């Protein structure tokens, strides 16, 4: 069973809306405050990437119920310029926004599962899951 809700990212305030959506779902699924903070940080990071590099896109939250597991999936979709060298952006220390800890590798570490698909000129599709423990 998967229920999905989305926020369209156009400006910086939409990042807040995406965070709010993620927090509500996380709370409802029973995530603790630390995991809630991690999930919203991941959402912030992904939504910010859309806002900064793609201009616009969608951030969706899915509730996951699989056998005995419950989780939350963040989906970040855009039709922006895409990423030519995915391996490079997944490297630590490589970040266009600068500073320690920014970027996609950080998001991957905050979540339990992370998938990225991107083609230059076609956009980017990132899916990250956090399971409830």
């Amino acid at each position, binding site marked *: 069973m998967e229920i999905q809700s989305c926020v369209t990212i156009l400006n910086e305030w939409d990042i807040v809306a995406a965070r709010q959506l993620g927090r509500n779902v996380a709370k409802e699924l029973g995530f603790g405050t630390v995991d809630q903070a*991690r999930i*919203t940080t991941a959402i912030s990071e992904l939504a910010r990437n859309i806002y900064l590099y793609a201009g616009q896109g969608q951030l969706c939250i899915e509730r996951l119920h699989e056998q005995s597991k419950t989780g939350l999936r963040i989906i970040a979709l855009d039709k922006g310029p895409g990423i030519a060298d995915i391996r490079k952006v997944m490297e*630590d220390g490589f970040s266009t926004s600068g500073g320690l*800890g920014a970027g996609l*590798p950080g998001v991957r*570490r*905050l979540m339990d599962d992370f998938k990225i698909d991107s083609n230059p000129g076609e956009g980017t599709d990132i899916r990250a899951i956090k399971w409830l423990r």
Partner: protein
Amino acid sequence: MDFRKTMEEKYLSIVKHYIQTQSEQGLYAGQQFSRRALEQKISPEEVISLQKSTMQELMPELPEEVWHSYDILLEIMTGYGFAFREHQSLLSKQQELKNEIEIAANVQETLLGTSIPSVEGLDIGAISVPAKQMNGDYFHFVQDGNHSVNVAIADVIGKGIPAALCMSMIKYAMDSLPEYRKDPSAVLGSLNRVVEQNIDDSMFITMFYGMYELRSNILHFASAGHEPGFFYCSKTGEFKDLKARGLLLGVDKGASYKRYEQFVEVGDMIILMSDGVTECRTDKGFIERETLISYINNHIFLPAQEIVNNIYRELERLQHFQLRDDFTLIIMKRTN
């Protein structure tokens, strides 16, 4: 026992104890906790959450506003946690790279390995120490029967991995020179063409090549912009520069290298080095060639290998054990 399972309890007792005593001992317990927590990679946001739940247990009557303020702290510390994890991951990546370079350095040592020939009438000592893990200096001996001992010493401008990679090429270029072409000016001429064709324009190599004829005791040599060596005349006790003119390898395809000669008598020495020896920087600036000569003089009656070892140790100490450039020193002493 799993630290994670017991940390809540431990944290609670540390805080409780400190609130009662406000002692240094109590703070020390906190420091010990942080050490364990770091070992277990407990992130900052988890510590904030510990603090919040501890306070909720110890002082549940605190006003709502205090609990709300924790949300901000948690949010901020999650950002720090983000950076903390990246730091962890960069550390392990650094270790990986270190291991890889170490392996590369071993491979290089094997690739560039040369043994110091033992020849009747000639006492040879050589030492080469890289500033970082990989060596951009290179020396090589070839013994040609009873006829001659050939010595090459080279230095890539630059150090570290790029320099080391370059050197492997020089070694193989030299190995593939035909047997009859051990004449110093011919060797440098052909290496120059190899370097010019194969190496990046920004990289240059200096090299000294010498052929010591055992029967006549004449050193034939040529240099491609290499740091001049010394010739020590035992009769007069004087050191003079082994001057030779020649362009660095890789600058000009058509460069030619003049061959020079030096007759060597019993007790005389040939001293070859890389600029890591003369550009050894001390508190007072670069050491002078005269200083180096005085060091050699201090040990002049020792076997050649001991002289170079001693000089290396002394210069290493002079630089507070921080080599800034690769260091190579060779001494050849005629004994009879």
